[in-house]
């Protein structure tokens, strides 16, 4: 049983969002990292890149597969988690502590389309 944290929002493509004012902190769920297996590379955008809800902003690569990361919101990247460049295994170790990007949201109403922890628990099994 994978870990799911209350208070975060989730997408059906297994990203989580923590809302911090106008900024969305985005990572992948514990379920996603477990499905991927040992992650070997995190492909991330650069600061100031624009991301669009539902479109890919990067990818996770594991020994098993490569999987795209889909942005749950639209906006501009304000920070990327540079620690993942040298230590992609951090995502396996704690997928919730090790966020991937922070996005300044252009339309906070997009958050309404995301799931709460209870709804996400239904699909992450």
């Amino acid at each position, binding site marked *: 049983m994978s870990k799911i944290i209350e208070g975060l929002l989730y997408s059906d493509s297994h990203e989580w969002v923590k809302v911090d004012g106008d900024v969305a902190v985005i990572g992948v769920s514990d379920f996603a990292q477990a499905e991927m297996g*040992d992650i*070997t*590379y995190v492909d991330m955008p650069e600061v100031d890149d624009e991301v669009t809800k539902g479109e890919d902003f990067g990818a996770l*690569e594991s*020994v*098993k*597969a490569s999987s795209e990361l889909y942005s749950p919101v639209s906006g501009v990247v304000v920070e990327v988690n540079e620690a993942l460049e040298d230590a*992609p*295994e951090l995502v396996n170790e704690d997928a919730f502590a090790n966020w991937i990007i922070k996005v300044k949201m252009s339309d906070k109403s997009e958050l309404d389309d995301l799931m709460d922890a209870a709804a996400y628990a239904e699909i992450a099994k």
Partner: protein
Amino acid sequence: MKYYDRLIFELSKSGRRAYTLPASADPASRFAIPAGLLRAEAPALPEVSEVDVVRHYTNLSQMNFGVDTGFYPLGSCTMKYNPKINEEIAAMPAFQGIHPLQDESTVQGVLEVYYQMDKALSAITGMKHFTLNPCAGAHGELTGLMVMRSYHASRGDFARTKVIVPDSAHGTNPASAAVCGLSIVEVKSNASGLVDVEDLKPLLGPDIAGIMMTNPNTLGLFEKDIREIASLVHDCGGLLYYDGANMNPLLGVVRPGDMGFDIMHLNLHKTFSTPHGGGGPGSGPVGVADRLAEFLPTPKVVEENGRYRIVGDAPLSAGQVSGYMGNFGVILRAYAYILMLGKQHLALAGKLATLGANYIKESLKDAYKLPIPSVCKHEFVFDGLIDDGSATGKPGATTLDVAKRLLDFGFHAPTIYFPLLFHQALMIEPTETESKETLDAFIDVMHEIAREAAEDPDILHGAPHNAPISRPDETMAARRPVLKYQDELS
């Protein structure tokens, strides 16, 4: 298998040489090499004798596994036996010793091979013309999509920016579309593993450049709704692209042109028995229907009064996709295969491949989960063991464990964890050249492995037990790759 793991650098002894050349006075001044391009120190090359080199590489080569050493049922990749007559013909000095810039009059035979190969592939597939220039399957996909774009652009239709790709497609399909500047729309498979026509319909419209399909698809199943799909896609103004990766079972039986496809590629290194694997040269000829012929890449070979000419000028062409005209050595080997088999026996190749795959599938479905039980084509997919041994209280044996255990019995592992539709996918393709005895030996071993898994899955977890290396740390190899030898002393 003997064990040999030394690096050529480890054999090095200072001052040892295979050949000693006369001392050169001052090579830098002799060749007028600018000072800035001269290295200050000699490169750290291994210093070895000739016999050291020969033994080193012969030992390494004996640790290799290929279709010449054993059964290689690598689904989706088609490790088909490469007949040796292909090699004999390709080694003929008149083919081997030529240069692409030679005058046309001195390479008429080579140009004839190009010309006749275009005719042969067109006849086999029901297309009008082929370009032989693309150097691999994915290169063929890109070339075919460039033809698709050129066609729409020639009609002034620039709104078609999307390509439909089934969820069962080879990963190269969406990748090729993206490289060609097109965006990808996914169409789902239905419960039978085929493209879901009802899911397809709402995707079709004036923004669709075309659809890419593999038939039989990556599950080894024939897309039997292809005629309906073709007319739906054509009605919306799109084109149909045929990924020829799975052409093997259809050789001489069904033609993509007759199914309604407009553009296609073939993998000569799969279907037409040329060497394959290890990143060796491939060839991905692209064929098109009549109305698209003028968009094919250049240069191409034409015939006039019994003489052959290379033509580079074609105003609507998608452009040049490779240096000169692709990998001629591969085209030549494939042409030899086609001529050796002829029309009648090419059709038999596909049928034998299909028979072999179905024989294995039916023989093993009592021990391995068969998610799609219908008759397959040249390959099929199991979804792991029926009894993985977890009832013993130990962790169950996975598809990876089965694949590793097969190595102990002298077989190459099948393709695993592809296609992605199944979690424990194990994809088997025997090809047409394997005898019933070989297939039976493989089936016996697969049954034996299933018995081991049920009784003690740890036998599989520890496999391979007989290989020189058991299980390398793939994760560390990907995270912290060591890509080159580093002299400990430097």
